[in-house]
C-alpha cells in the first residue's frame, strides 16, 4: 500500500512501486485529466504538477512520488482557490483562470493534448506572471523533458489563452 497526495487529498494505492504514476491516476484513482500519449516523455499529454513542477506521469514511478503534492487537471480549480484563499462555497464554483481562458479563447481542437498544455501553463504562470510570447514558446518547447506536442495545431490558441489567463490572474491579484 502506498499513500500519495493527489489534489490535496491523501489516497491509498495498491500497485507495484515501479508502476508509472499515469496508470495509477487513471486506473486506480479514476482521474481522466492526464492522457497516455507516448509513454516516453516525448509529448506532454500525461503531465501533472509534482510540488508545482510539471512532470511526465508516464515515466514517473509511483514509488518516487511519496510525500510530494500531485496536482492534476481536476485539481486546478482547488489549487487556484487555495492560492487566493477563497471560501469553500466560492471554491466549489470556481475554475482556474487558465481553464476559463481556454474556454474563452476556444483553444482546443480535439483537445487530447490540452491537459498537458494547461498543466505546463499553470507551472509557467505561477513562476512568471506576465510571460512574453517568446517565454511562452520556450516554456512549451524547451523547458521540459520534451516539447508539448499538439497534432491539431492549436498552438496559436494556446498562446492566446495563456496571455488571457495571465491578464485575468494579474487583475484578481490586485483585487
Amino acid at each position: 500500500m502506498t499513500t500519495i497526495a493527489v489534489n490535496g487529498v491523501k489516497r491509498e494505492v495498491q500497485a507495484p512501486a515501479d508502476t508509472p504514476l499515469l496508470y495509477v491516476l487513471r486506473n486506480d484513482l479514476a482521474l481522466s485529466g492526464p492522457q497516455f500519449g507516448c509513454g516516453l516523455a516525448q509529448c506532454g499529454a500525461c503531465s501533472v504538477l509534482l510540488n508545482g513542477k510539471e512532470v511526465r506521469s508516464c515515466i514517473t514511478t509511483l514509488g518516487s512520488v511519496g510525500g510530494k503534492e500531485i496536482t492534476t487537471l481536476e485539481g486546478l480549480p482547488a489549487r487556484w482557490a487555495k492560492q487566493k484563499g477563497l471560501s469553500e462555497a466560492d471554491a466549489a464554483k470556481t475554475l482556474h483562470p487558465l481553464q476559463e481562458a481556454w474556454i474563452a479563447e476556444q483553444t482546443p481542437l480535439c483537445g487530447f493534448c490540452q491537459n498537458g498544455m494547461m498543466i505546463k501553463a499553470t507551472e509557467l504562470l505561477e513562476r512568471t506572471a506576465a510571460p512574453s510570447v517568446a517565454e511562452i514558446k520556450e516554456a512549451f518547447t524547451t523547458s521540459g523533458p520534451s516539447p508539448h506536442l499538439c497534432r491539431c495545431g492549436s498552438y496559436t490558441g494556446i498562446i492566446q489563452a495563456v496571455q488571457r489567463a495571465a491578464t485575468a490572474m494579474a487583475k484578481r491579484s490586485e483585487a
Partner: protein
Amino acid sequence: MSTTSSDVFGAALSRRGFVKAGGALLAGFGLAGAEGRQTAGAVADLNPAQPESWIEIHEDDTILIRTGKSDFGQGTIFTAYRQIVAEELGVPFGAIATVVSGDTDRTPDGGGTFDLLMHGMPNLRKAAAYVHQALLDLASQRLAVAKDQLVVKDGVVSGGGKSLSFGELVKGQKLNLTIPVKGDLHSMFGLTVDGNPPLKPLSEYTIVGKSFPNSVIVSKVTAKETWVTDVRLPGMLHARMVHPKTLGSKLLSAGTLDKTEFPNAQVVVKGNLVGVVALSEWEAIKAAQQVASGTKWAEWKGLPGDQRLFQFLKEDADWKTAPVASSQTNKGDVTAALAASAKKLSATYQLPYLKHAPIGPTLAVADVRADGSVFVYTHTQNPQALRSGIAHMLTTSVDRVVVRTFAGAGHYGRSNGGNAGAEDEAVILSQAVGKPVRVQWTRQDDLQWSTQSSAALSEVELGVDAKGNLSAYEIKHYMPAMQDDRLVGALLAGLPTIPAPNEIGSLFGIANAMHDPWIYDAAPVVKERAYGTSQVGQASSPINVGLRDHSMRTPGQYQQNFPRELAITEAAVLGGVDPLQFRLQHAHEKRLIGVLESVRENSGWETRSERRSSSNGLSRGQGVSAMFRSGTYWACVAHIAVDTTSGVIKVEKITVAVDPGIVVNPAQLRRQVEGGAVMGVSMALLEELSFDESGITASDWRSYPILTMADVPEIKVVLIDHPTAEIYGQGSEAANALAAPAIASALLDATGKIARRLPLKPAYLQALLRA
C-alpha cells in the same frame, strides 16, 4: 388509440397517441427508403417508432438532435449542426440542449465524419426543415390559421393574434415524423435524407454566421469529458499487442509468460495475431514485453525502403493496370502548344508517406458477450462502417454489433472508412478470453501498424508564351491506392476482411482520381491525368499487409496540389511575372480572384516580377498557393527566412484567405484554419515516414517529428463570408494543404532554388543551395 397520419412534403406525420407527460415530436426514418437496414436481432437498429431519431421536440421547449457523425476536433456537430438546425426550425441556438453522436444504436445516419457540412446540406438540415413544416401543420390546425399566415420566431408560432410554442404544440401527444432516406447505412457515405422540404431563405438567417462556443470544450478543459481512454467495463482486462517483426512476417512461435512474475496475465494467439491480456495495465505492459522478447517471426523484405521509394515508384510499380483518370477540364493539344511555347519546363515532384500521427495512440474496448452480441467502445469517424467490418470479421450479422463512439485524439481521416486500428484486435481478444478487453496501442504500434497517407510523384511539362502567359500545361500524378479500410487484426488472425484495394470487389480499387480541380481557367491548353497502382509491398507480404495507405486530411488533393502550385509559381518565374499576379491573370472565377486579392492585401505581399536580391546568410522570400476543395476557395501566402548555410527554413508568417461560401461559425472556422495551417507547415518542413525493406522504422516522436510551438509562425486568417454562393463549404479540412507549395514558392523567391521534394529538411536544402 388510432394512428392518424398526414403528408408533409413527402414525410409522414403521425399521432401515435396521447400521453400525460413527455409529449414530443420525434423525427425518424422512413423504412421504405432505408436500403440495407435490418431491425431484427438481439441488438436492434434504431426503430423508427422509438424515440431514437434525428430530432426530438420536447414539451419543455428543449430539443435533442442526433447524428451518426462524431467529433474529431472540428466541433462542428456541437456548433454548426446546432446552428443549422436552430435556423431551419426557427428556435434559439440554446434550445438545442443535447447532441447525441456517433453511436450505432443511438444515432440515425451513418457515413464517415468528413465533409461535415455536405455542401450545405447535412442530413440534419433537411430533417429540421421537415420538422419545421410538420410543426407549422400542427399549429395551423390548433390555431385555425392558414399555414402561410403563420410566423415562427424563437420557437413560438404566431398567427391570427394567437401563439403557441413548439413545446406547447407537442404537449401531451406522441407524434412521429417519418422522413424519407436513401443510401446504405454501413457504407463510407451512410444514409442521406431524401426529398425537398422548403428551406429557410438565406436572407432570413439570424443564427448561422455567429460565433457560438463549442460546448464540448468546457467538459474537456475541466476533465469532465468521458474520453474513450476512460471507458472501463466490469471485469475488463487490459491488453497490449505483440505485432509482427515486419509487415510481412508470419508467426513461428509465440513467446511464453513466467506465471510467477505475471500471475494474472495470459497470452492469446490466433494465426499471426499475438496479444497479452492482464488484470492491470502495468502487468499487461510488462508481460507483453516478456512475450515479445521470446516470440519468433519469419523474416521478410518486400519493401523498396524509403531511400529507393521514388525510383521504385518510377521504374518498378505497375501504373498500367488501373484505369487512368483524366480531368474534366482538359482541353487543347499539349504537344503542339508546348512546341510553340517561348519557354518550357519539365520537372518531377515527390511527396513522402505521412502519418496521421494522433497525439494519443489508438485504443478500443470490446465486449464480446456470451449471447454473441458485440459492443465496441472507440473513437471512430465512421461507426456504422466499423460495425459492418466487425460483423464481417466475426461472420455474424450487423445486428449483433454495437459501436459506441467517445471523444479521443483526432486522427484526420484514418477511420473515415471505419477502423482506427485497435478495435478488431480488442474484439478478437475479448472473444478469446470471454471478458471485456481494452487494447491500447503503443506509440510504436501506432506509427508502424496503422495506415499512412500515400506517397506520390508527379511529372509536369509546361510552356509559357512570350507575353508571360501559361501556354501549355500537362501533369501526370502517380499515387498508390489510398483507401485501405481492412482490419489489420483480422488480417493477422486470418479472419475475413473486405478486399484489399487491388482485389476484386474492393470499394475504391487501385485507380487514382483527379483530386485537385483545375482553377486557372484562362490557360488555353491543359492536360491532367492521374495514375494508380497497388499499395507498396502488399501483394508480396505473406500476411497481405505491406504499406497500407489511407486518406488523410485533404486526401489525394494534397499530393496533387503541391506539384501543381509549385509548377505554377515556376511558370510565373519563367514568364517574368509576379507569381500572385500570374495566378490572377489566369483566374476567371470571381471567388478565386477574391481570395487571391484578399491574401495579397492582407499578407503584405510585394508585387514584383523578379526576386529580391538576398543578403548573406539569411534570405527572405514570399510564396503563394491556391486551391479549390468542396465548395471552398483558398489562397495562402508564406513568408520565410532561409539560413543559406544551415539550410534551415524559418516560416515567419502564414496568411490564409478562405471563402467557404456561407461562414457558419467564424470563431470556430478561424481556429480550424489556424490548426490546418500549423499542420501544413509541419508536413512541409518535417514530416516523412521512414521505412526499410521490412517495415516502418519510425517508432516515436523523435523519429516522426511534428512542428513544436517554438516554430509556429504568425498566422493570419481572413474569412470571406460569401452568402450569395449559397453553399457552406468545408472550412475545417483543407488548410493543411496550403503551406507546402507556398513555402516552396517562397524558397524559390528567397534563394532562386526549386525544392520539388518534400519535406524541406536542412540536409536536402543544403545540397540544393550548394548545387
